[in-house]
């Protein structure tokens, strides 16, 4: 009995439903709006972290969800949760925007000015679904368990969009070392978050 409860508990933490995809495929705008409410704070939080600019983050957020609406049929539940799909789209667009801005050299001057505005918007977890809060705790603890060098290699790549050689240059380490650290970090992350993936 206890074992069954444990299994159910684990199962409930997996993100196996796809309300966003279902709403888009059915063409139900109000359901899509509800799915947006569920996911948007996570995606927007990520974009703010990457871009440090609310205007850019809002633009990419809107673009990402619009793409989710138009390309909903391209989402394959067998390959991951729809939140992961959304996040991957948002991150890739966010990093592209970040690089474009860095090329224009705008980031440095704007970063300091916007951060304070961003912080005031931080969600007090009121509308954050329980499932997300649970994953959040797991992700943070998994990151905390990583050696500092591995964690920073991972974060510089994921949130700052730096290539492995850029990270190597920035940290003054050989490229091979950075690749090894990133790989070890991803390996641990994959093990630790197994219970939260959609499969």
């Amino acid at each position, binding site marked *: 009995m206890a074992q069954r409860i444990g299994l159910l508990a684990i199962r409930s933490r997996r993100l196996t439903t796809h309300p966003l995809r279902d709403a888009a495929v059915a063409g139900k*705008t109000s359901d*899509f*709006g509800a799915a*947006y*409410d569920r996911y*948007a*704070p*996570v*995606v*927007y*939080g990520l974009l*703010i*972290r990457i871009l440090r600019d609310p205007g850019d*983050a*809002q633009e990419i*957020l*809107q673009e990402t*969800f*619009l793409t989710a*609406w138009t390309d909903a049929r391209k989402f394959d539940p067998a*390959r*991951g*949760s729809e*939140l*992961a*799909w959304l*996040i*991957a789209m*948002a*991150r*890739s667009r966010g*990093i592209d925007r970040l690089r474009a801005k860095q090329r224009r050299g705008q980031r440095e001057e704007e970063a300091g000015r916007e951060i304070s505005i*961003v912080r005031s*918007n*931080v*969600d007090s*977890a009121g*509308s*954050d679904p329980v499932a*997300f809060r649970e*994953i959040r705790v797991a*992700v*943070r603890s998994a*990151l905390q368990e990583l050696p500092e060098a591995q964690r920073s290699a*991972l974060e510089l*790549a*994921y949130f700052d969009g730096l*290539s*492995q050689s850029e990270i190597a240059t920035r940290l003054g380490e050989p490229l091979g070392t950075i*690749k090894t650290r*990133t*790989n070890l970090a*991803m390996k641990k*992350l*994959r093990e630790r*978050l*197994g219970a939260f*993936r*959609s*499969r």
Partner: protein
Amino acid sequence: MTHEEIQQLAALDAIGAATADEVAELRRHLATCDDCRRAADELNESAALLALGVDPVTPPPRVKENLLRDVGRASARPALQWWLAAAAALFLVLFLWTASQLSDARRQVAQLKSDRDKLSAILNTAHVIQLAGQEIAPRASANVFLDPSQRRAFVFFHGLPLNAQDKSYQLWIIRADQVAPQSAGVFNVDANGNASLEVRNLPVDTMIKALAVTLEPRGGVKAPTGQKYLVGS
């Protein structure tokens, strides 16, 4: 590359840290290796969960308003595309129809050219008999171009009265060696009273004494019964 090395590339790719060459190599491998593809999917999803480690931030309401407005427009688009597709299909059908008409027209032109060539060949050697309108159709006329070598004739009728639905004109050959006229064909005239007829298996021209046209019951008869409209010899 070993599966282990491929999965290391997949780990880098999951956080956007693989180079273009590495991504290309990875994609090639994943296209044929289910185990590595599964591992790559898991790595991608694990990387996405990293985003959940960041503090969530509620976006301003106008983002949702703009999004739903755009979504409404995007939903209206399939209908437009449907119409575009329908219009494109119609255009295609019209195009194909026109092309087929054009090809019919080309065939007709080719046919006419071939007729003209035949006709001019006939005209060079032809024996022409003119038929004159009789009392009932004084303005009618016909030219019979006999081609003895091919034992055929082309006949062009002009100015004949429009025949009624239940009537047909019939061309008769009066042979030197036979009393009874021989039918050479049945025809109807157009609104201008014109018609043309190709007659095959003609008797040799020395046997042709005269030609005549009568109006007969529709489809023609074995022996002439109606009035003569045209006669010539």
